[in-house]
C-alpha cells in the first residue's frame, strides 16, 4: 500500500481512504475469510437454483418449441399474455384466486391469533398442552392424506353426512357442489394450520414483560382489558410481519390441495390460476402460455408485497 506513486500536483495522497467501502470490505474479507467461504454454498444455491432458472422466463415471450430450445425459439412479444387476458376463463380464474386468498386472509389468518390468545388465558397447563398437540397435529399430515380424508368425510355416506342424516337433514354431496368448495377449502385450511400458526404468537406472548400486566392490574384492568391493551399490542409486530409475508403470496393459493379436491362440477368456484396452469402447462404441454400466466401471477404477488410493506411502514413494523 505504501508503494503508491506520489503525484506531481494536487494534494498529496497519504494513503487509502480508510472509510471507503472497498477498503472496509476488503479488510473484512481478509479478516473473516473462512466465514465468507462458508457463505459460498449459500450464494451458489441461490444463483443456481433460484436466479439461474429465471432465464427460462423468456419463454413467456416466445413460442417455445422443445426442438429449437430456449434460445432459438422465435420471439412473439406479449401474444401469450394477450391470449390469457382474452381467454374465456380469465375473469373466473382471477376471481377464484383472489377470493380464496381473501377468505384465507380474513378467516384463516386471524384464527391462529385467536387460538393463541385463548390458549394464553388457560390456567391448566396440562389442558393447554393437550389442546396445542391436538391442534397442531394436522400440520404434519401430508396434503394428499388430508385431501383423501376430506373426500371420505364429505362423501354422501361419509362421516359428516352421517351426522347430518342423524339429525334428520338431507344428505349433500359437498365436493360435488360448487357452492361448498370455498367453505370446505378454507375451513380445512384452518383445521390444518391453526395450531401450528399459533405457536409463533404464543412465543411472542411469552416475551411480553410481566411488569406490564402488573401495571395494568394495578390500574384495574380485567383479563379482557389486559388482553386488549397489553397482549395484542405486544404481539402486534409479529402479526404485521406475518401478514406482510402472507400478502406476498396472496395469488399463490394451495394448488396441490385444490387439484386433489376439485372436479369439473366445482370448477366454477375451485379453478384457480395455479390449477389452470397445471392443466395448460403440464397436461397440455403449452409451456410458453403457462410461463406467461405464471409470470403474470408473480408480478401481482410482488406488487402486493411492496404495497403491503409500504402500508405497514406507518405502524413501524415494516420488513425493509
Amino acid at each position, binding site marked *: 500500500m505504501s508503494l503508491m506513486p506520489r503525484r506531481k500536483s494536487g494534494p498529496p495522497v497519504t494513503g487509502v481512504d480508510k472509510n471507503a467501502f472497498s477498503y472496509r470490505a476488503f479488510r473484512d474479507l481478509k479478516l473473516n*475469510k473462512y466465514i465468507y*467461504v462458508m457463505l*459460498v*454454498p449459500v450464494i451458489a444455491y441461490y444463483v443456481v437454483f433460484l436466479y439461474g432458472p429465471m432465464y427460462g422466463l423468456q419463454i413467456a415471450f416466445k413460442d417455445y418449441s422443445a426442438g429449437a430450445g430456449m434460445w432459438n425459439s422465435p420471439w412473439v412479444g406479449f401474444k401469450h399474455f394477450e391470449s390469457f387476458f382474452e381467454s374465456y376463463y380469465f375473469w373466473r380464474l382471477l376471481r377464484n384466486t383472489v377470493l380464496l386468498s381473501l377468505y384465507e386472509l380474513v378467516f384463516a389468518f386471524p384464527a391462529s391469533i385467536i387460538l393463541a390468545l385463548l390458549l394464553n388465558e388457560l390456567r391448566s397447563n396440562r389442558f393447554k398442552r393437550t389442546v396445542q398437540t391436538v391442534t397442531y397435529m394436522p400440520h404434519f399430515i401430508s396434503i394428499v392424506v388430508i385431501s383423501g380424508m376430506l373426500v371420505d368425510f364429505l362423501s354422501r355416506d361419509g362421516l359428516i353426512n352421517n351426522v347430518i342424516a342423524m339429525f334428520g337433514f338431507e344428505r349433500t*354431496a359437498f365436493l*360435488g*357442489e360448487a357452492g361448498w368448495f370455498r367453505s370446505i377449502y378454507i375451513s380445512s385450511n384452518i383445521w390444518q394450520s391453526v395450531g401450528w400458526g399459533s405457536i409463533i404468537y404464543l412465543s411472542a406472548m411469552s416475551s411480553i414483560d410481566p411488569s406490564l400486566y402488573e401495571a395494568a392490574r394495578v390500574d384495574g384492568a380485567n383479563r379482557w382489558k389486559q388482553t386488549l391493551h397489553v397482549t395484542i399490542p405486544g404481539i402486534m409486530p409479529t402479526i404485521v410481519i406475518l401478514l406482510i409475508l402472507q400478502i406476498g403470496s396472496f395469488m399463490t393459493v394451495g394448488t396441490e390441495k385444490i387439484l386433489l379436491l376439485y*372436479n369439473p362440477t366445482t370448477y366454477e368456484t375451485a379453478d384457480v390460476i395455479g390449477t389452470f396452469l397445471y392443466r395448460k402447462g403440464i397436461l397440455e*404441454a*403449452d409451456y410458453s402460455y403457462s410461463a406467461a400466466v405464471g409470470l403474470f401471477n408473480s408480478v401481482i404477488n410482488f406488487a402486493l408485497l411492496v404495497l403491503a410493506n409500504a402500508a405497514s411502514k406507518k405502524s413501524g413494523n415494516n420488513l425493509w
Partner: protein
Amino acid sequence: MGMNNWKTLSRTSVGIMITALLVVGCNTSSTAPEEPADGNAGTGAAEQTNEKAPEAAEEVGYPDEITYWVQLNANVAATMKDYGEIAAYKKVAELTGTKVTFQHPPVGQEKDQFNLMIASGELPDVIEYPWAAAPKGADSLIKEGRILRLNELIAEHAPNLTKILDENPDYRKMVTTDEGNIYVMPFIMGDPSLSVVHGPIVREDWLKKLGLEQPTTIAEWEAMLTAFRDGDPNGNGQKDEIPFLFNINDIDLDHLFVGAWGITQDFYQENGTVKYGPIQPEFKEYLATLAKWYKDGLIDPDFATTDGKLKDAKVTGNQLGAFTGYPGSSIGRYIDLMKENPEFSLVGPVYPALEEGGYAMGNYSYPFSGIGAAVSATADNPEQIVKWLDYKYSEEGHFLFNFGIEGESYTMVDGYPTYTDVILKNPDGLPITQAMAKYFTANWSGPFIQDKRYMEQYYQLDQQKQANQNWSQADHSKHLPPLTLTADESSKTASIMNDVKTYRDEMINRFIMGAEPIDNFDKFVSTIENMGIQEAIAARQAALERYNARK
C-alpha cells in the same frame, strides 16, 4: 502469505463447489453414452440365436444396453417392481444379451412425466407410450429431433415387422403419418374381436330378481333403473340402491346412451364429415334424458366425486345396479371378489338404441390406436434397437408376449397355445390378470401383435364372452381412424380444445345435476362456437381427408 493461502483455499472451495454442481447437474443426462456397438459381447450371442435374419441385418447385432421408458401397468405393479421382471422380457434378455433398464413414471403422473421428458430433451433410448395423447403430433416430434423416423430402419433391420406390414396394407396405412413417417414399432390388435373392450354392465341377479329382461333401448334402461331404485333388489329392506353410476370419461370411451342418438360426446365422423357431438341438437335430448334420470334418483348423486376405489366399494357393497367397465377388470374381477355371494352376477347388455332395432354406437378401437415404442433421436444405436424391438414381431416373440413361456404359462394343445393353471388358476391365488402380467403383456399392450387366442382364454366366464359379443353388435362406422394432425393444426387447436373440454365437462355435469337448466343449451353451444370449435373441427376434417387419401 495469508493472501496466498486464502487464494488457494478459495480456489479449491469454488472448484469443489463447481464440480459438485456439475456432477449434480449432469448425472441425469450422462448415463447413456456408450461406445458404438461393434464387436461387443451381445453380437455373438445374438447371431447364434437368430439365424433366420436376412443378410442386410447380419452386420447389426443386438444392443448391449437399452433404457426403456414405459408406463407401469397396474397388473405388473401389483406384484413386481418393473417390466424387467416379466418372464417374457427376461427371456428376451437371455436370447439377445441386451440389458434393458426400464424407467417407469410414478403411477398417475404418466402424462406429466412424458411431457416434461419430451420438453427437457433428456430421453431414454426407447419410449413406449399411447402417442395419440402426445401434445404435438408425431410428425412434429420427428422434426424437432425428439424421436426418429423409423421407415428406413424398419425396412432394413426389422424383417418381421416389415413382413407383417407388407401382408396387411391396412396396418401400414394406420401406422404411417400423413407425412409418410412411421414413428413407432406399433401395438396392433390382431383381430377385430379385440377392438371392443368396454361397455355397459348390469347386475344380472337383480334383473332376475325383478323379473326383467336385459334392456335394449333407452326406455327399457329407464324402466330397469327405476325398478332398481324401487324394487329393493339387494333385499336389505332399505332403499339404498344406486341404479346407475355415470362416468364422463367412460362415456367418452364407449358412447353409452349418447350413441343411441347417433352422436358422441367428442369428435366423430358421418360419411366422411367430422362433427363435434356436444354442439349437435341431439346432444340436448341426451342431456335432458340424463338430467331427468338424475332428478328421479336413477343416477348416483355422487358421480362427480366417485373414483375407482369408491366404485369398487359400491359394487361389492351390493349397492350399484349398472355402470360401465371392462370384461376383465370389471366383470371378471367383481365376480371374483364376490365369490362368497354365489348369486352375484354381472352381464354386459347390448348398447341401447332409441327404439327397438335402432341405431346404437359403441366402444371400438382401430387395430392401431397410437400405442407403440418410439426410438429417441438421441439413441446411439437405432439400428440395433430396432432390430431388438423387431424380435417381438417374430414367431417366437409373438408367442412370448402373448402366451409367455411354453411349458410354464402355456402348452400347445393341437396347435392351440393353451394357458396352464399357472395363469388360469394361479397357485399363489393371483387374479388372472396379475398372473398373466408375470409372464407377458398381452392383457394390456406393447410393441407386438396381440393374438385373439389370448382373449379367448382371458374371458373365462360366460358373462365375459357374452358381453364381448353383445357389445360388438353396435355400429362402428362413425368412429374416427387414428388421425395425425400437423404441428400447426395441433398447436392451434390444442388450446381451443383445452378450453372446450374444460367447459364441456363442467357443463355436462351441471346440466345433468340440474345446476344449469336444459333451456340454456343454446348458450352452451354458442359458447363452444365462440371458443373456436369450428377451427378444431376443420383441422380434424383435413386430417381425416388426408387419412382417407393415404394409400
